[in-house]
């Protein structure tokens, strides 16, 4: 009697075990749909997720949105780098789950994303009509007119510099004089490197942070660096302009601090006078301010070599896998409205892509205390107007450009290669991608 009961018990336990495992599996896959599965039952409270990277200045805005919409809780997932955000984006898009309800996408990989526009909600609506310049809207619109992303910011570039280090090297410190020093309105890259030589002669501190960053500034002035517009044929390795820029960077490695942007040493170098100058797209101001907390002397000059440049700029999209496409769209719409992007600009320096915001009176009045009260609104408005080239970025732009940054870092940061062998490795990599 006792043994049979034991057996029956064991049998039941076995079956229950299997059942448990089976149900465990199914509930597990449900969970992947989103953290909000529990709250999804009631119509009252919902949780929206938003993913961004680097610094977008959205914290105060998201707080405000939650205050104004008590039924909505927002979770903000902030990636350290655009690379990381892209990795996670690819993985989750392929898996069909795991993307935030509102996903921030950088222009460098926007073209890739446009190939899968059917995985995104059409964001076109009357409220955003005429909000951006046509070129910005064009980057996020499919041939058949679907609007995949709302433009957030653009990245007009100026030159950020340490006035105290400039003073120590006997260079002018006032931002207007510094702009003149770099060549004013007709600034060229030769001027830039010449100032570097002048600085290096009088100072122990390296001139700029990273050759890969300077490369980024230069390559963004080419109309089609790596791919032929239209056909997307990879021309990166044959493009003489790309090779020229690479050679220029390689010829000036002695001016570079040899740091890898976003790396641990780069982060720390802000606190240890690691370098004196940085090419600064507007969104970089927030990064500098965060890393260089407590350091005095940062300023920004209204000048850029080679006739203006744009680095980065992003979009907000709503993936089709979102459970709350309407609410997510409303949030993205609200965040990219001119008033909100002005707040973001004040918070972290992300220069608005919205026409109304760019032309507004408020933006001209915005200054930045950290950068010696520089009138950043005015400066970046001029910088944005100086941008003449909208570079073509095809489906393979991101991996090719990323490989190039590594090629430069191999020489500058790691010293594992010289200029020639590193270039050859890059060519091999590009061939493997294409």
């Amino acid at each position, binding site marked *: 009697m006792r043994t*049979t009961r034991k*057996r029956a018990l*064991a*049998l039941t336990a*076995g*079956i229950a*075990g*299997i059942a448990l*495992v089976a149900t465990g*599996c199914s509930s597990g896959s449900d969970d992947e749909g989103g953290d909000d599965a529990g709250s999804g039952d009631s119509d009252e409270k919902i949780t929206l997720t938003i993913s961004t990277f680097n610094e977008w200045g959205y914290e105060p805005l998201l707080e405000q949105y939650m205050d104004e919409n008590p039924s909505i809780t927002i979770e903000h997932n902030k990636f*350290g*780098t655009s*690379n*990381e955000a*892209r*990795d996670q984006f*690819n*993985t989750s*898009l*392929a898996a069909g789950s795991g993307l935030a309800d509102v996903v921030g996408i950088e222009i460098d990989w926007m073209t890739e994303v446009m*190939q*899968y526009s059917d*995985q995104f909600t059409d964001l076109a609506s009357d409220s955003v009509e005429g909000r951006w310049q046509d070129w910005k809207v064009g980057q996020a619109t499919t041939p058949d007119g679907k609007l995949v992303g709302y433009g957030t910011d653009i990245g007009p570039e100026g030159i950020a510099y340490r006035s105290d280090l400039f003073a120590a090297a006997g260079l002018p410190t006032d931002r207007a004089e510094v702009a003149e020093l770099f060549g004013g309105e007709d600034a060229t890259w030769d001027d830039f490197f010449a100032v570097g030589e002048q600085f290096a002669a009088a100072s122990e501190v390296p001139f700029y942070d990273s050759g890969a960053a300077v490369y980024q500034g230069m390559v963004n002035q080419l109309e089609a660096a790596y791919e032929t517009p239209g056909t997307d044929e990879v021309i990166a390795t044959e493009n003489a302009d790309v090779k020229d820029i690479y050679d220029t960077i390689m010829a000036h490695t002695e001016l570079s601090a040899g*740091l*890898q942007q*976003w*790396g*641990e*040493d780069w982060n*720390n*170098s802000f606190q*240890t006078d690691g370098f004196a100058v940085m090419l600064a797209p507007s969104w970089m101001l927030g990064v500098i301010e965060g890393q260089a907390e407590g350091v005095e002397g940062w300023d920004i000059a209204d000048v850029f070599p080679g006739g203006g440049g744009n680095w980065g700029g992003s979009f907000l999209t709503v993936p089709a896998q979102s459970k709350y496409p309407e609410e997510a769209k409303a949030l993205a719409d609200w965040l990219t409205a001119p008033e909100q992007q002005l707040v973001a600009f004040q918070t972290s320096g992300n220069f608005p892509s919205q026409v109304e915001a760019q032309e507004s009176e408020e933006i001209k009045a915005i200054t930045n205390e950290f950068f010696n009260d520089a009138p950043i609104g005015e400066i970046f408005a001029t910088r944005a107007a100086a941008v003449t080239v909208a570079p073509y970025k095809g489906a393979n732009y991101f*991996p090719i450009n*990323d490989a190039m940054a*590594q*090629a430069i*870092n*191999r020489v500058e*940061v*790691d*010293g*594992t*290669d010289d200029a020639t062998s590193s270039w050859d*490795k890059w060519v*091999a990599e590009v061939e*493997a*991608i294409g």
Partner: protein
Amino acid sequence: MATQTAPTRARPASDPSRSPRRVGFSQRLGKWDVKLSPYLYISPFFIIFAITGLFPLIYTGWVSLHDWDLLGGQGDFVGFENFTQVLGQAYFWKALRNTISIFLWSSVPQVIAAIVIAAMLDANLRAKTFWRMGVLLPYVVAPVAVALVFSKMFADDSGLINTVLENIGLSPVGWHSEAMPAHVAIATMVNFRWTGYNTLIFLAAMQAIPRDLYEAAVIDGASRWRQFISITIPMLRPTIIFVVLTSTIGGLQIYDEPRMYDQMGQGGNDRQWLTVTLYLYELGWRNTNLGRAAAVAWLLFMIIVVFAVANYLITRRIASDSAPKQRRVAGRNPR
């Protein structure tokens, strides 16, 4: 085998004398219970394994024979082209080199350290539980957190370790720029996390060694060291095989630590610490070429099989020259 054949031969002889229909249903149920239950009890593992292990394995093989885009899906059948492509890439061989190097730097010191620490914990210590829990503490820390802390310590210019090195007059090490130091740094994270875990496994095995063996050895005048070499190590053989196999499998699949070793997660500018799994991720998810990533997965699988078999053969030889029979008998004694 002998016990199984006997009843089948006996059955036909006894059948005609008895009416088979008379056997009660409950009795038959009981028979099924005895025969089937054991399989039923172990079946959850095999069912789960078939779903989460075997099927993906075969399906990955299927994917590896096609042009397969991560987002675009299945393309043309290409045979073994993905494999030849991957084998022709310098990065694959670099990844393999790095993986094996990191594996050696982590597994070998780890197993040795674990046995030594376990032997010390096995001695008479005050507050035994405290020390035993202590070695397991690093295991509780999430690998990503470990990697974050260690990658700050191992930063090339501003890291703690290089600062210390410079202060005591040594030249700083290129923990990120040079391949071998990077491997050592990553292996350090792995060792930090897993040594304690393996120590506890060894400790459990050591405590199962019958104490009379040591007593006999002491009477024979054996030193502590001699006891360790001639009793402890040979008696630990099955455990050592287990630990070496699991750390081989884990070591060759290493991902978290190298991924988190810098901000970019690409294994370094010159792929100094690119491992095979990182390479797999890069191909499949960064370049969205799932077919090639699947080929790498299969190559990795085969490499692990080769390594596991080789390790098994090597570790099986531990002390197998010295009186294998005695050991086997002694091994069953404690039960």
